[in-house]
């Protein structure tokens, strides 16, 4: 795969910065240039919005047949996570045994290595998720 795709600046991969529609207030991740609810009204009013990084597992899978970049990492857990801000995103859930994952598990984002492009290629970083460490006050 071409190097520019890897090295393109995608700060959202590291910082979980999404966008908030200035018209309806809905928060999106990954960032959007147009709000699918407000459309035209939202143009020019989509603002950067950092997510707190906390969410709830909505569904999950454990991958045993990985694509080439993830060979040797299997089994790894991936989840569809509903962030506290209301948007959904997909990511790996790490630092837990596959049997520990369940729907409803509270998770928080962490910054991790995603994969390496061979031994001499670019190392890709981004977000993953782990079990929320501290008990939350309701």
């Amino acid at each position, binding site marked *: 795969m071409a190097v520019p795709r890897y090295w393109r600046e995608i700060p959202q991969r590291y910082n979980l910065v999404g966008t908030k529609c200035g018209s309806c207030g809905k928060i999106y991740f990954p960032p959007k240039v147009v709000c699918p609810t407000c459309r035209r009204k939202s143009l020019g009013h989509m603002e950067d919005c950092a997510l707190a990084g906390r969410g709830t597992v909505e569904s999950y*899978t*454990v*991958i045993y047949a990985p694509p*080439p970049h993830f060979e040797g990492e299997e089994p790894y857990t991936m989840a*569809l996570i509903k962030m506290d801000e209301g948007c959904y995103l*997909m990511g790996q859930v790490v630092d837990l045994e*596959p049997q520990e994952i369940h729907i409803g598990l509270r998770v928080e984002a962490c910054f991790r290595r*995603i994969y390496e492009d061979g031994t001499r290629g670019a190392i890709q970083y981004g977000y*993953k998720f782990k079990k929320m460490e501290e008990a939350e006050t309701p």
Partner: protein
Amino acid sequence: MREVALIGSGVTEFGELWEKSLADLVAEAGITAIMDAGIDGTDIDALYIGGMSAGRFVGQEHLGSLAAEVAGLSDLHIPATRVEAACASGGLALHSGYLAVASGAYDVVVVGGAEKMTDVPGTEATNILASAANREWEAFFGATFPGLYALMARYHMHKHGTTSKQLAQVAVKNHHNGTLNPKAQYQRKISVEDVLNSTMVADPLHLLDCSPITDGAAAVVVASVETARQFTDQPVRIMASCHASDSISLSERSRFDALPAAVSAARCAYRQAGVEPTDIDFAEVHDCFTIAEIMAIEDLGFVDRGQGGPATEDGLTARDGDIPVNTSGGLKSKGHPVGATGIAQIHELMLQLRGQAGQRQVEKADIGLSHNVGGSGGTAVIHILEAI
């Protein structure tokens, strides 16, 4: 818009066809369909071909021109278009051909679909198929195609109580049907235990919950209804041809226990055809994974939401059930050459509607439906056909 019919169809054998090239497969399917329709090269106004990723599977793009060349039609200089919508490329190619004939622009078009997938290693095929998902926000993080459907399966199980055994029964049924299809990649029966004991690919989906990697091609001939009678006394009318889209990313969907694009395309198709789900006699649905067939029969309104698993268990969709689904063996047993699948579904509908399905012929075959999905539900194409 004019009334449109199908007047011929053909498929190659499906499987690991190491001795045949992509071009061989395109030529074989196309010529079979042309012979079946009884048309001559000079009758053809245009070609459409669906293909997902020939560029990455075999290093070949520009499939429209390739199809014209191998079919011996280059000198006619007719328009030849390649259509891509991941695993719905075939269905979308037919929708394109349908619109061209319905509009009056063309009278006779040939629509094909092809994919040659087994020339790359399995992990590379997984990676290529992941290009049907959002590369930067899903595949980048390690999501695979079975993984995306596994997320939907787990969600469906949690919300509706669907079980692994019910998923397995989709595979058992489709393999059973596949034993009667001489073109199918796998012509052997499997048991629920075989499915549940097979290797886990993406929990809760086992290897035998997944459709295979396949080489194959299919083609149909489309004509206006008034032209159709010149060539065949067994035309099949296209009652509806509908295409719907949704977000490419699973995480941006409005729900995870259904494919909203399929629901939308189905609504369009029933309205266009003037029929209800209960009028459909049989269907070919996009069972790329067992959960996909469970969601498909719900999205199509054959059963209520959440009832796909129990209905499958009760035999509703078996060949002798109330609404036979995937009599061809489906993607699961017949094989899933992604670009060809949408057209191969139409081929099966035509065989059934014309009473040519042999041992797997269903008793009542007046109206059939095909349901072809791209990616994890970013594209859905639905056709409803009737014998006339």
